[in-house]
Structure formats: structure tokens, C-alpha cells
């Protein structure tokens, strides 16, 4: 059995270095403005959570090994090493204290994409053995069982039966040659099966052929979160193999933030080639159906509601307008948060933070940012499009005793389908 070592970690840092990262480190003047964009700093006031500070180990590798002057400083013995002690001290900052939400990357005056750098830096941390146990275990379950929450296909099959019974519709599994293959997140399977029901009803109405795959139903990717491209590749590859075997034209990424990043943006680079299919986010697909007139809804939600932008879908995924159009289709009183769209604040549980048990107190503390955003609006309902955000927000609202239901956008659309059996 091999093991994680400092040397492997250092190699991983070296391997991650590229022109963008070198230009980012070269440009940072330590102005500290990224701190003001990070909810871990704004809610705790602790300067150690300043985004660029989280990159100190990676920065040292860059300076000492990738700059002329840094090499001279190293020869002169003027550099501080990257050792186990440093990585151990920084692990809680890089994992517990960063949701990879990317808000800092939007405000840096010199243009540093800090969350991208943290994503890359995690490669070094995980290779050196400094990743939180919660995330290590999630990765182990994802690789061995097929899902970070340990959900196996029989569990999904049981949920499918329930949904089929509820809706009276068939949930297709392992059907070859259909247009769409849908993915789910474990959380949707276990906590929000309504999503699956919503898909079935919507696709029935618009006449889309689709399937689930018994060998690759899990959309989430613990490898992306822990920061191991190797593990991420293994998990993505299952989906790619399944989709190409079933000869589908599209793979639908579910209401899960990092799953979209994993399958849509990182996946082709992890396997080193473009896909033979396209990846669409469920909201992208719904909006396409809406604008082409195929998706028809009736009635409006009366409740005053707002939309929480999942970071990976909106800011880092580019699905910005779609949720707005869809919401306006079914909501009469939709209000935007003060910071919204690509500048919305993270729920506090993204980037794998929700899998870190020891980070719970910190996570609830930083939730105060979302809490105050909601308090400003006085809404009845919160709509979002990420199962992880949804769970984290529900926990947060419960902690702070706020009675605001959290709803998935896809389900909300499904509730308003024209001619749907349920509405008849």
C-alpha cells in the first residue's frame, strides 16, 4: 500500500504550476481586498481566512521554484520551506475555510482567480496527506461504493419505485439510444426525491426520451472537492463510459453545484479528451424548453420568493439567466437578493465543506451572511438549484430559527406543468 508523503505533495504543487497561477502570484500586492469578498472572513473577522493567505504553501513553491529571484533567495537560505508543519497548519484554511465559491476571484483588483488556485493547491494537500477525514471518507465511499453518501443502486431502485408509485410514471433505467441521460446527486436520491419526480413529469410533458443509468447515476464528485484529479477522473470516467455505452446525446447535470463543475468543466480535461456527448445543466435544458415553447406552465406562486445562486452553477458555471427566466415563468413575486447572480454569497457548505464534520460550527457561523441577506428581503420562500446548498441552508435556517421553506427550482416548475396529471 502506498501512502501520502510530503514529497508527493510538493510534486503535486509543482505539477499544478502554470502561466495563469504564476501570473496571479506575481500580481498579488497583498491589498487584502479578497478578504472582504470571503464570507469566512466577513463572518469571523479572522484575517487568517483571507483568501490569498490560504495559498501561502503554494505561493512558496511558486516563489522558490518558479521565479529567478526566489531561487536566489533559496540558495541564500532566505526562504521558508514548505514542510509538514506548514501544510498541517494550512489544511483547515484550504478545506474547512474555503468553499471554492469563487467570490474572491470576482473582486481581486489585479485579477487573481484565487478560488482556481485553491482548487489547484488542494492537489498538493491531498497528495501530502493533509485532507480532512470527512472528505477522505467521502472519496473512499465514492470510489468503492459509487456515492460519497454510500448510496448504492438498490437504494436508488427503491426510491424509483416510490416515485413511480407517486407519479404513475415510469422512470427509465439503462435505456440505450435515448437523447438524455440524467444524473442525480446522492442528496437528491435520499433527501429530495421530488427532483426525480419532477424530471419524470417534465420530460413526459415535453416528450423527451431519457434514462438513468444503474452504473453511473451519481453526479457528485468527491475527487473535485478533495482536490484529487486522479480520483475525480475515475469518478467522471464512470459517467463518460456509461453515457457513451448508452449512446445518449446529452448528459443532464442535476441540481448540484460541484457536480456541474465536475462533469461540465473539469471532466473533459480529467479524461484528456472532449466528450462524444454534450453536458447540460437541468436549468439550461428547462430554459431551452421554455424559450422554444415546449415547456408550458400555468398558475403562479403567490409567495414572495427569492433565488439563492449556487456558486458552481451561476458564478462558476455560467448558468445565470436561465433560473431568472424560469422563476418569472411561475412566480409573481420574485425578488433578487442584494448581492445576486455572479456576486451572490455562498451558503457556506460548498467545495466539500459540508462533508467535513469538524467544520460544522464554522459553517453555521458563516451562514450568518446568507441569513442577513434573507432578512433584508423578508421572503416567504427560498428557491435554489443545488441539493447541497439546499441542505446547508435548511440546516442554517433551523439553527437560526428561521421559518423559510427551501425549494428546488426544477420541482417548482414541475408543480406548474400544464396538463400534468397531478394538476388535473
Amino acid at each position, binding site marked *: 500500500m502506498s501512502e501520502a508523503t510530503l514529497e508527493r505533495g510538493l510534486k503535486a504543487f509543482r505539477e499544478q*504550476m*502554470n*502561466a*495563469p497561477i*504564476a*501570473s*496571479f502570484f*506575481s*500580481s*498579488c*500586492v*497583498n*491589498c*487584502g*481586498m479578497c*478578504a*472582504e*469578498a470571503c464570507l469566512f*472572513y*466577513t463572518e469571523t*473577522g479572522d*484575517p*487568517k481566512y*483571507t483568501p*490569498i*493567505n490560504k495559498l501561502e504553501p503554494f505561493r512558496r513553491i511558486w516563489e522558490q521554484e*518558479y*521565479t*529567478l*529571484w526566489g531561487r536566489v533567495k533559496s540558495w541564500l537560505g532566505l526562504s521558508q520551506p514548505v514542510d509538514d508543519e506548514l501544510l498541517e497548519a494550512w489544511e483547515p484554511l484550504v478545506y474547512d475555510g474555503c468553499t471554492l465559491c469563487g467570490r474572491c*476571484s*470576482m*473582486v*481581486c*483588483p*489585479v*485579477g*487573481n*482567480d484565487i478560488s*482556481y488556485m485553491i482548487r489547484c493547491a488542494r492537489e498538493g494537500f491531498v497528495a501530502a496527506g493533509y485532507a480532512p477525514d470527512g472528505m477522505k471518507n467521502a472519496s473512499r465511499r465514492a470510489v468503492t461504493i459509487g456515492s460519497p453518501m454510500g448510496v448504492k443502486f438498490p437504494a436508488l431502485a427503491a426510491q424509483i419505485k416510490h416515485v413511480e408509485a407517486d407519479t404513475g410514471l415510469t422512470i427509465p433505467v439503462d435505456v440505450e439510444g435515448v437523447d438524455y441521460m440524467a444524473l442525480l446527486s446522492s442528496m437528491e436520491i435520499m433527501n429530495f426525491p421530488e427532483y426525480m419526480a419532477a424530471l419524470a413529469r417534465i420530460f413526459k410533458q415535453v416528450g423527451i426520451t431519457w434514462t438513468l443509468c444503474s452504473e453511473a447515476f451519481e453526479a457528485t464528485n468527491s475527487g473535485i472537492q478533495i482536490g484529487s484529479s486522479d480520483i475525480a477522473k475515475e469518478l467522471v470516467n464512470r459517467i463518460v463510459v456509461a453515457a457513451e455505452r448508452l449512446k445518449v446525446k446529452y448528459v443532464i447535470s442535476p441540481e448540484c453545484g460541484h457536480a456541474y463543475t465536475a462533469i*461540465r*468543466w*473539469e*471532466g*473533459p*480535461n480529467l479524461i*484528456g479528451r*472532449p*466528450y462524444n456527448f*454534450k*453536458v447540460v445543466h437541468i436549468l439550461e435544458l428547462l430554459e431551452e424548453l421554455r424559450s422554444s415553447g415546449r415547456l408550458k406552465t400555468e398558475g403562479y406562486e403567490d409567495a414572495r420568493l427569492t433565488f439563492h445562486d449556487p456558486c458552481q452553477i451561476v*458564478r*462558476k*458555471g*455560467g*448558468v*445565470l439567466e436561465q433560473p431568472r427566466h424560469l422563476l418569472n415563468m411561475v412566480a409573481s413575486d420574485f425578488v433578487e437578493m442584494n*448581492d445576486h447572480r*455572479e*456576486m451572490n454569497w455562498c451558503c457556506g457548505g460548498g467545495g466539500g465543506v459540508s462533508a467535513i464534520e469538524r467544520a460544522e460550527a464554522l459553517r453555521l457561523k458563516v451562514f450568518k451572511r446568507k441569513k442577513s441577506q434573507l432578512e433584508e428581503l423578508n421572503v416567504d420562500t427560498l428557491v435554489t438549484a443545488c441539493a447541497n446548498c439546499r441542505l446547508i441552508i435548511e440546516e442554517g435556517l433551523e439553527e437560526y430559527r428561521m421559518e423559510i421553506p427551501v425549494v428546488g427550482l426544477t420541482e417548482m416548475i414541475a408543480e406548474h406543468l400544464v396538463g400534468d396529471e397531478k394538476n388535473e
Partner: protein
Amino acid sequence: MSTPVDFLLWVRGPGFDIALVVFIIGILIRLLEVLILGRKPDYAEPRGGELGAGLRTLLTRTLPEPGTFKRSPFTVVGGYIWHIGFFISLFLFVPHIELIDATIGLSWPGIASNLVDAVAAVTLVTLVAMLFSRLTHPVKRLLSGPEDYLSWLVTFLPVMTGYLAYHRMIDPYPLVLGLHILSVEILMVVFPFTKLMHAFTFIIARWYNGAMAGRRGVQS
């Protein structure tokens, strides 16, 4: 005979040559050691173009994101004032324009010397305030190391000695003019080896930021 005039002649002659050579070679090394690293091809199907988005971000990052501005107005406003003040003093003072004209053959109209003087005074005060902020703000204090303070010093000195020279506060004039030129030469020599390089690399950084986001359909 070692007189202030000898000193002035040295900084205007060999000193300037050394500084310019280190500056040019240093900057080229730093830029190339960044750019040659390159990046891997991106196989994900793009939603938007990189070039335009990168260029837009290059421009739009000049203005602060409104929420962040509200949260750190001092850093933003102070940063603007001294950067603009520094560039006005550097590029619109007629003696400096003469220098640039003689060095690279480009020339443009200057502004009134006493206006530059006022701008330089504001720049100096702002730079001191920025240093104070760096020493007291918990985030900046945590982040800052010797290199940050060195960068501040070598930026501050040319403005300060320029101000002293303009007002002839040190006698004789060749001495204070020589000190001013020397301080600029120190800035030029230190420049490529510190985060002062951001004055060039921010173009690359902003472009990559905008391009990577633009590829995903987001204007960053």
C-alpha cells in the same frame, strides 16, 4: 573630487545605465518565466469566447465591485489616489517627459509644474496613510512581509525626493536631484524582483481571469 555634481553625473550616467539594464532584462525574464509555463489545452466545450472576455476583464477590473468597495473604501480610494497621483507625477511632469522623450523617443504634453506639485503632495500623504493601514489593518498586517514594506519604500522614496527636489529643500540642488534620480534607479532595480511586477503581470492575470470565466459564460 567628489561633489554633488559628480554624484549627479554618476546617477545620470552609469547609474542610469545599470538601472535601465537591470529593469529591462529583469522584467523580460519575469514575464517570460510566467508566460512560457503555458497552460494545458481545455477540452471542455466553451460557452463563450476567451479573448474578448479576457480583454473586458482587463478593463472592468479597474473599477471595484460595488459591494467590496463598500466594505473596504479606504483601500480602494487610497489605492486610486496614489496610483493616479503617482502616474500623473511620473508621466505629466515636463522634466519627466523630456527624459522619456530622450530615452524612447515618445513625447506628449505635460501639465503645470505646480499642479504636479500638488498631486505629488497628495500622493505622499496617501502613501503614508496606506502604510499606516498596512501596519494596522489586521488582514494587511497578517499578509505583509519585508517585501511589501520594501515595495512601499522604493515607491515612496522617488515621490518624496522628487518633492524635495522640486521645492529645493536640500542644498545644493545637484545633490537632491541626484538623490531623486538614485531613488528611481533603486526602484527600477528592485522592481523586477518584487511584487512591483504586478504593474505588468496584472495584464496577464486579469486576462486569464476574464478568459477562464468567459469560457464558462460569465463576465468576471
